[in-house]
């Protein structure tokens, strides 16, 4: 798989949308568009085995705040996240962050917490230390940051334990601590609280909110409607690889306009 997405042509200008205007967020101002958290996607498509798994004609996310991504199982949420992080190359299309094409440079300012946490076969502390070392932090700075991050997710007592012996929820918390440790400008979360107990969910949500308030752009996939309501500034709803709807959270939860999002919120399955 190619290391990065290399654009072959200049990005096409944002086209006026074909969908009803209310289903779209207003386009960000030019100043916002240059911020590192401002995602812009044009004509994005991902094909595999003759299926179009992701098909996003146009999407522009605000440079800050929390964007919640929702949609049924298999809608293409995880693929979308990996595409915009530059881990997989799209079949077509253009992705940029703050007008910088998606690639190793943008990825370096971002952190992704995978749906299934990938932990190194080392101690809890060593997992956090690993990313900090890769970023060239000094030993003293690493130790301090590591302790700070573990305390933030409530794992300080487990620092010396093998990471893979943590419970599922603890593993997710460690993955989040490791992601936040590099102080990313963009935090990408793929169902990061899916197996946490209610108190831990709230604790993680508080951390995420704090990060967003400090200027980190958060893009958060969830199936937890309550969580989406609590965190979202805007909601992007994916249905069969397409953005069915992208609106400010208040409007979205007041009454989604797309049939698929309505069905999802009502707990119906729309095929």
């Amino acid at each position, binding site marked *: 798989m190619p*290391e990065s997405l290399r654009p072959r042509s200049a990005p096409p200008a944002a086209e006026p949308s074909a969908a009803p205007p209310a289903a779209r967020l207003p386009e960000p101002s030019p100043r916002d568009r240059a911020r590192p958290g401002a995602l812009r996607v044009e004509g994005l498509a991902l094909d595999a085995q003759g299926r179009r798994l992701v098909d996003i004609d146009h999407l522009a996310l605000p440079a800050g705040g929390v964007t919640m991504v929702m949609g049924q199982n298999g809608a293409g949420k995880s693929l979308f996240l*990996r595409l915009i*992080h530059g*881990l997989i190359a799209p079949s077509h299309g253009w992705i940029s962050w703050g007008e910088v094409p998606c690639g*190793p440079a943008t*990825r*370096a300012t*971002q*952190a*992704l917490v*995978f749906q299934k946490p*990938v932990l*190194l*076969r*080392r101690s809890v502390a060593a997992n956090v230390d*690993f*990313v900090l070392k*890769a970023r060239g932090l000094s030993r003293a700075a690493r130790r301090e940051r590591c302790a700070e991050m573990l305390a933030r997710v409530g794992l300080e007592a487990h620092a010396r334990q*093998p990471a*893979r*012996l943590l419970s599922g929820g603890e593993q997710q918390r460690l993955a989040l601590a490791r992601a936040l440790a590099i102080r990313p400008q963009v935090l990408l979360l793929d169902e990061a609280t899916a197996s946490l107990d209610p108190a831990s969910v709230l604790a993680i949500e508080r951390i995420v909110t704090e990060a967003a308030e400090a200027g980190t752009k958060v893009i958060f996939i969830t199936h937890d409607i309550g969580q989406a309501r609590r965190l979202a500034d805007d909601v992007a709803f994916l249905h069969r690889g397409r953005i069915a709807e992208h609106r400010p959270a208040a409007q979205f939860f007041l009454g989604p306009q797309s049939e698929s999002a309505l069905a999802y919120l009502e707990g119906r399955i729309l095929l």
Partner: protein
Amino acid sequence: MQDFGAAFGLAFHLIATGNDNLVEIVLLSLKVSFSALTLSCLIGLPLGAFLVVRPFWGRGVVVAVLNAMMGLPPVVIGLLVYLSLSRAGPMGWLGLLYTPTAMIIAQTLLIAPIVAALARQVLEGLYTEYDEQFRSFGISRLRAAAALIVDGRYGLVTVALAGFGRAVAEVGAVIIVGGNIDHLTRVMTTAIALETSKGDLGMALALGIILMSIALGVNLAAGGLRAMAERQAYA
């Protein structure tokens, strides 16, 4: 000609009393094979990790060649090393033929491909799991390779033990380049061959028992390590 029972009796007597000759041969064997193993790991582990993290044109061919080299007959390697180290050979001026160093070189050539090929297999599985996370971290390939070796350490110890087992039990290469010289290049396998042909079955059997115990010990150690790794969820 001694009978079977008498040979066993003599063998245990030699081992129990710590016969000087026996000890000398065993120690040289271990020294040569451990040196070869160390060199093989220094070459084979980074090579195996590099082949995993660094895609390049023709990597499949390199891997196939490496896998084929795992089955190289020791005598052929012995012959090649002999030709290079013999007086007329390109490295004849080093005067290494019939020294333990020559035996270390031959055994290294024998097991480095094994260590590299098996390490690649072990680390490949690990890398499929880590690949995306590593790319998300944005770490260099060098750091990724090093991290794979560290995280694959328990699997790699098993690889190293397999290489050691092959080196210490091998006879064809060391007899050609070492010459089985008493007190100088005589190791367990070459001594067993010699003592058997001389009819000194007690000595041969004593060495054989020790060789088998080493093989058994190595395998028990590998199994123990694997169990420990699994307990700690490091496997």
